[in-house]
């Protein structure tokens, strides 16, 4: 695999470190350690941002805002709550939701669009990473086991950035029902994934 270009020699040394060790350095203001964290997680972070925003400039802005937020608030990373990947993607997701809500309804149609129908530009890549393919397959399998009404609210919320009240209005459901479906869906996904979770 071709490794990305890194700006400094220190970054090359930091590549030997695990994510949590890198975060300890980042907390101390080590920009080279942060650069390695960025290089490791930039693709999945950008992929999520693009999936939610649907436009390259918006996704790039989200990526930039999210990683700068991670740099400035590195002390909020708690390894007991999840991996660096989970922490970063949580920040990216939060920023993307903010961007979608700022942009209004026009920017939030993509939750309803199947992934296969999204228009990607020339930089989309077919991932040949076996582990990534297995992880994607596991998630699709878990989602397939959920009732469709639970899948719907999860996708509208997570990828569409809609609030629970918007989803309730959209689907003509009581707010409590929407919240309940979200909780039920995540409880099932949690049960499905946790044995596979490698994070502390």
């Amino acid at each position: 695999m071709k490794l990305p270009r890194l700006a400094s020699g220190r970054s090359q040394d930091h590549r030997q470190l695990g994510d949590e060790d890198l975060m300890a350095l980042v907390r101390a203001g080590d920009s080279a350690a942060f650069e390695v964290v960025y290089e490791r997680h930039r693709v999945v972070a950008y992929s999520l941002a693009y999936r939610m925003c649907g436009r390259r400039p918006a996704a790039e802005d989200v990526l930039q805002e999210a990683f700068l937020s991670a740099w400035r608030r590195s002390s909020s990373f708690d390894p007991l709550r999840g991996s660096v990947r989970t922490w970063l993607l949580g920040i990216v997701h939060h920023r993307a939701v903010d961007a979608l809500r700022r942009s209004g309804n026009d920017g939030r149609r993509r939750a309803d669009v199947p992934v296969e129908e999204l228009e990607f530009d020339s930089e989309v890549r077919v991932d040949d990473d076996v582990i990534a393919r297995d992880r994607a397959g596991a998630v699709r399998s878990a989602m397939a086991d959920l009732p469709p009404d639970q899948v719907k609210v999860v996708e509208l919320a997570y990828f569409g950035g809609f609030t629970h009240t918007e989803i309730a209005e959209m689907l003509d459901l009581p707010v409590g029902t929407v919240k309940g479906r979200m909780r039920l869906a995540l409880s099932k996904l949690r049960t499905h994934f946790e044995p596979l979770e490698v994070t502390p």
Partner: protein
Amino acid sequence: MSQADHAAMFESLGAYALGALHDDERAAVSAHIESCPICAEDAAAFQRAATRLTDTVPILEPGPHVRDRIMAVVESEAALMRSAAGERPEVRAPRRSLASWLAPGSGRWAAAGATLLVVGAILGAVLPGTGGSSTRTLDAAVGHGHAWVEVKNGNAQLVVENLPAPPGRKVYEVWVQHGAEPPQPASRKLSDAIFVVSSGRVEIPARIGSGDRIMVTAEPAGGSQQPTSLPVVITTRA
């Protein structure tokens, strides 16, 4: 918090993990999980489960320009933190530009090619505060100019004398750094945190506590949300 309130928070954890709550609701749940280990554990587990949804998205590479944009800010802030902590700065591009804007007013700096000497002369001259119990004067030399901060009855003012003009079409911006936190503009309203005068007084709206650092950097007109150049003034309240 009542049992009913706890139950309401508990029921909201799924929506919380999916980012589906309104801002006020999200803040309430965030506050709750800080004090409720049961909900904190569930929230973290739900967050991990929600994040797994990302595994299904098509993989895309961001362009290298995004990394360059991010790292330019990160490097700048890291350098600022190193400088604020009193470490000797490394020779990098931002410092060369700092030397270059000093050069027109004092040609001998550039002629000597002494970039580090210039930066050291500015950043190294951080003096401890002096003054009475309610008034502390903090002092830092800036080239041929002078700058210090006066704090009286909790109100701070930056006083500058013969400060070199900011480079190009830039302005000076005042920053406050609490402990190891990143520097913040001295005012949420950026127009209150910037100045261009070479001699005069600049109000610092932010509250200045003991050990806080006050810094001044040259920024694009209108000011910046984060520093884009090295500080030309660093003072620390004793």
